[in-house]
Structure formats: C-alpha cells, structure tokens
C-alpha cells in the first residue's frame, strides 16, 4: 500500500507542479468570467454610445412620435436626402420614411457604416409601435381599452417530491443537464487520455521495467489512475472556488458600475419601446421563474452527483485508456483501440442533447443512465430533472461494478502490454494477453 501512495504522490505532484496545470486552472475561470464580463461590457458600451438618426418623413405620420432613448436621438433632417447623405459621420444615420409607409411598411436606414442590430431593432420597434397605434385607431379600436385587456396566464410547474411540491423549471434543468453532460464528456476524455499518455510515456522511455521490478503492474496502473484522478478533482475544486469568487467579485464590480441599469425608470423606457408591453412583462416573470428555480436548485446535491459520476466514469474509462496505452508504442497508434471506447460516450453525449433532455424519464434515458459505460453522462443529464433514489442508487452500484470489471480486464492487458516493445498489437493479441496466466 505504501508503494501505491508513492506512485499516486508522484503522478499527482508531477502534474500539479506543471505550469500548464496552473495556467489551465486559472485561465478557465478567467475565460468564463471574461466571456461573461465581455458580453455585459459590450451591451453597456453599445447602449452608451449615442447614435444620431436624421429622419426624413415623407408620410408625416411617424416623426413626431419617435422617442429619444439613452442611446438614440432622433432629429429632423433639414436638407434633401442627397445632401444629408453626404454629411453622415460616425454614429449618424439617415432614416427615410416613404409616403406610403402604412402600406409598404418599409423604411430605409442609410449610414456610412453597418448599423448595429441594436439600432435597427430599436427603430423597427418604435416604428412598429407607432404604425400599430395608427392602424388600430384607423380601424376604430380604442387603445386604452385594448391595453387594459391583458390576460396574463402563468403556468407554474410543480414537481411532486418528498418535501412537497417544489417549483421546477424544465428549461433550467435542461440547461444544467446539458452543461453536466458536456463537462463529464470533456473531463473523461481529458483525464482519461492523460492516463493513456502517461502509460505510453513510461513504456516509451522504458522506465516501466525498472518500476515494475519494485511494484506490481496493477499497483502502478492504479497509482497512476488515482493520481491523475486527484489532479482532476483538484482542478474541479479550484475551478468551483475560483469561478465562485471571481463571479461574486465581478458581479459586485459590475453592479456598482451601472447602478441604474435595472432602475424602474430604465425598465419603463425599455417596456415603452417594446411594442407589446405584455411581452416584456412575460419576460420579466420568466426571469423571476429562472431566479426562483436557481434558488430552488440543490447545488450541493448536484455537485455531489457530478463528482460521484465523474469519479465512477473516470475510473471506468481511465482503466481502459491505460490498457490502450499499454498496447501501443506511440499515441498515433491508439486510433484503432480508441473507437470502441469513444463510441458509448459519444453516443450518450449526442443523445443527451437530442433525446435525454426532452424525455428525461423515458426508456432510452433510463437505460443510458443504468449501463455503466453510458451512465456517467446519461445519469447526469437526468439528475437536474429529478431521479428516483432507487434508480440513482442502482446506477451508482452498477457503475462501481463496471469500473471494477474494466479495471480487472484492463490490468490483465496492461501487465503484458507494458513489456511488449515494438510490437503492433491487434485485438486478437489483446485477447491473448488477457488470457496469460501471469
């Protein structure tokens, strides 16, 4: 046992001390934060840069009802279209409204550069609204009456659980399920292939023969698998901790930067510019829903499940990766053995997007979350939707059985494979190795 710890220690430290580990560990949360911050920064910037829109309204219907917003100011054009055109500078646009705008519903927006989608949609929203009002009153419908009729049906989905009915949201569960599926898929491959590369490295530089004169091949394999697994767990924990703290800090900074971003005034400006204010109200309640569901999500439970299925899946697959590594002399030769290992994972991964998130309690979802080769992804997609405890338990037990089985098979191939130099192994050969007594 002491020797396994030595191996685990070496495998762990030699990887954690690498610069690339530090870079990846710190860069990934930064990347997340950067992306998130970037999106917010862009949207702030976009609304902050003021665009001037010169309007030539041949119909005379629209121009008086256009409202200036924080980022757009409308001005009546003084010159003729050709004159105005030649004078357009940066962030200046020329909006030409034809006489027959009510019928054609077409406007022309001229500018020296491409207008942002934001500018375009703002103009079309405002004009739509104005036209709608005009058309409604032309049809003799009273606007006030119409606005007062706003049925607002909200479907609250309630999940029946042991603790009573809980508010649930299929969309959020779907998102989490997909995220978990991607994470498991990627990490199984990343850490699994690290095990494989480690084995190939030891075999290639022939250090393996020295090592196994001191320890059993099985100990070496297990030590490597556990050591690299711990590297993975360390990385996860650091990611969670770093992302958490970065997001908190980032959130604080951003909310202090734009104190009135979500003020009531702002809301009303936005909602007034939205043609159907009810739509915005709906969005608002959806946002509430999401927040409500997020608050209702049992993160410790999800993270625990994730870690269990990551560890189980990792142990199962990394043993196979180790066996593949032992059977080849270089990474380029791994292809033929990788395919059967990749297939179940890839299949479940693809299925998780198409079928599993839509029908998380269906028969395909059930079986994929039970078979040890697919359950790490299959089950993690289902967990956010809620899984009966017996299924979760059974899946974990099967997964444990699965990795004990693959480790056993892999170790029998591994102990022979690592001593076979310069021999191109075929499947037939692997079976032969598996059958060797010792």
């Amino acid at each position: 046992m002491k020797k396994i710890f030595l191996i685990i220690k070496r495998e762990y430290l030699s990887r954690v001390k690498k610069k690339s580990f530090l870079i990846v560990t710190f860069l990934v949360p930064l990347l997340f934060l950067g992306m998130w911050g970037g999106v917010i920064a862009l949207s702030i910037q976009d609304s902050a840069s003021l665009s001037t829109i010169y309007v030539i309204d041949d119909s005379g219907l629209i121009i008086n009802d256009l409202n200036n917003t924080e980022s757009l100011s409308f001005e009546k054009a003084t010159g003729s279209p050709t004159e105005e055109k030649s004078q357009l500078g940066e962030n200046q646009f020329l909006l030409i409204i034809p006489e027959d705008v009510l019928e054609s519903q077409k406007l022309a927006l001229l500018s020296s550069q491409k207008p942002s989608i934001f500018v375009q949609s703002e103009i079309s929203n405002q004009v739509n609204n104005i036209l709608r009002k005009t058309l409604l009153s032309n049809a003799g419908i009273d606007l006030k009456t119409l606005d007062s009729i706003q049925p607002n049906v909200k479907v609250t989905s309630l999940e029946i659980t042991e603790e009573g009915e809980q508010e649930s949201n299929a969309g959020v569960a779907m998102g989490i399920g997909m995220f978990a599926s991607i994470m498991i898929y990627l990490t199984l491959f990343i850490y699994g292939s690290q095990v494989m590369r480690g084995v190939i490295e030891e075999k290639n530089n022939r250090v393996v023969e020295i090592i196994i004169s001191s320890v059993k091949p099985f100990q070496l394999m297990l030590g490597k698998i556990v050591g690299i697994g711990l590297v993975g767990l360390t990385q996860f924990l650091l990611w969670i901790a770093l992302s958490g703290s970065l997001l908190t800090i980032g959130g604080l900074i951003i909310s202090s930067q734009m104190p009135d971003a979500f003020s009531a005034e702002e809301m009303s400006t936005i909602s007034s510019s939205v043609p159907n204010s009810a739509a915005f109200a709906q969005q608002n309640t959806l946002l509430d829903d999401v927040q409500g569901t997020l608050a209702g999500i049992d993160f410790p439970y999800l993270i625990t499940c994730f870690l269990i299925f990551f560890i189980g899946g990792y142990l199962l697959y990394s043993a196979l990766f180790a066996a593949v590594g032992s059977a080849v002399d270089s990474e380029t030769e791994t292809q033929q053995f990788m395919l059967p290992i990749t297939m179940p994972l890839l299949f479940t991964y693809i299925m998780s997007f198409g079928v599993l998130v839509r029908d998380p309690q269906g028969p395909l979802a059930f079986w994929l979350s039970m078979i040890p080769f697919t359950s790490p992804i299959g089950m993690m997609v289902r967990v956010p939707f809620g899984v009966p405890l017996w299924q979760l338990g059974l899946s974990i037990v099967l997964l444990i059985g699965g990795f004990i089985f693959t480790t056993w098979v892999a170790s029998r191939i591994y102990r022979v494979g690592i001593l076979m130099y310069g021999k191109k192994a075929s499947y037939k050969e692997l079976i032969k190795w598996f059958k060797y007594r010792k």
Partner: protein
Amino acid sequence: MLEVQDIVKQYAKHLALDHVSFSIKKGSIFGLLGPNGAGKTSLIRIINQITAPDNGEILFNGEPLSEKHISQIGYLPEERGLYKKMLIGEQMLYLAQLKGLSRADAVERIKHWFEKMDMETWWNKRVEDLSKGMQQKVQFVATVIHQPELIILDEPFTGFDPVNVDVIKNEIIDLNKKGATIIFSTHRMESVEELCDSIVLINKSKKVLDGKVSEIKNTYRKHQYLIKYSDRLPLLNPEENELFKVLNIQELEDGNKATIELVNNYNINDVLGHLINQVQLQEFTEIIPSIHDIFVKQVKEN
C-alpha cells in the same frame, strides 16, 4: 543464494523456458548467457517477480521467492529509461523509496553515491539534459541504491564509453567484494571472462551449459598448442610413435608458426622434449577456447 528449479514459461504457442535449472552461489558473479530470444529476459523477469513461471520454483536464500525479496534485488533492465521531465534527485528518491527505503535513508545513500560517481551537481538536472552515458550512470546507481543482496544487470555496458565501462566494472567488482551476488546477462564475452566465476548458457529455451568458467574452459580444451620456432624445418613426430598432429603451419619472416594437437595422451613435456632437439623454439602456448568460442560452438551445435 538463488536456486532456479525446473522453470517452465510458456507464452501462447511460444515456449520461452523449457525446464531450466541451475543455482547461483552467494557472492559470485554469475553470467547468464544466450543468443537473442533464448529466454534470458523471461528468466530475469521471473526472478524479479515481474512474471510468474508456469512450472518450477525459484528459491532465494532457501525460501521461495516472495514480495519481501523485492527490496533485496536490484535490477538494471536491458530496456531501461527514466522519466524525462523529472529531476534526477527526485527520480532517485522515488525509485529508492519504491524499493522500500525510507526517505531519510534514501537521501543519504543518494548523496553518498552521487559523490562517489562525480554526480554531485546532477540533483536538480532533468534526464533530458543528460547524455546517454550519464543517464546510464544514474540508472546504475538507481539499481544498487538500496544495497540489494542480488544485483541483476542486463547488458549493463551498452551505451557507455570505455572510460565509464571501467568505472562501472570497478563498481561491480567492488559491490561483489562487499558481498553482493551479481547476475550478469550479456553478449559481450570478453567481459564475461573478465568478471564471471560461473555461467549458464541458455539456447532456444533450454539450458545447454552450466558451471564454473575455469571448469568449462577445461572441458573444452582440445590439447592444442601454438608454437613458434625460428627454423624452417618441418615438425616431425618420433619414428616409433605419434605425439602430435600438425594442424597448420604458417611461414613467418624469421621462422614458422604452427598449431599442433597432442594425441595418444602424451603431455606437454613429452612433446617439448622431442621438439627441443628438432627446432629452435621461441614460443609455446596452449590454445584455450574462449567463452566466446564455446558460446558460438554451442549455439551452432544446438
């Protein structure tokens, strides 16, 4: 020290070792010889408990091999290497600890060996920064760092320059004097004659020869002698009986060189006494077969 008893090892259809038995005396330097593919590496791996035999048993100091013997064996494989990115010092520490040394002991011994082998400055170097010969030195130290009773060296001199071959050779002799038993597997027959007390020759999975180097050589003596003499006279046997056969004669600038073989159980003195009266002798040497010749002869015959 080590008893190899009736070892059989079968790989699928290939029989790697076919009832091989021999024993190695404590404190000896033992040569394990054989052409490529004879089964040497299979046997070494069995002694190292990397693989297990299908039949037979190996006794280490009278006990069947078990896990506790791992720390008493040092093995330098023919296919050897080190972790490229790992610091030499850490690597040594790791290998020594895997052999069961405590960290403190390991550090002390490594320092001792590094000093002895002029490697003091290597601790913080990486293997990839060392030359091949330097790497071999590190590997040799790693093999003996835990003071094993039995040291198995598989082709230890490949990759060394002549200076380092001597360094390592002297270390081997030194370790042997301090009581270590050494198994020496090689194709380099001159080092076998120089170092080994006893040998075993394995060919095509079978043991073909076994014993003390001097005894084996004795057995393979053919009573042939090389003689040089200054005259250009033919070598004649006495008229009444035949003492020797002349196998070949070579003419030199200042005389002749001939190979003769003694016959009819006559000894050197008989022949010398006869020849002294015939020619002016300059040199008279027995042709003793080298281990190399015996090796080649045996391998070809089988």
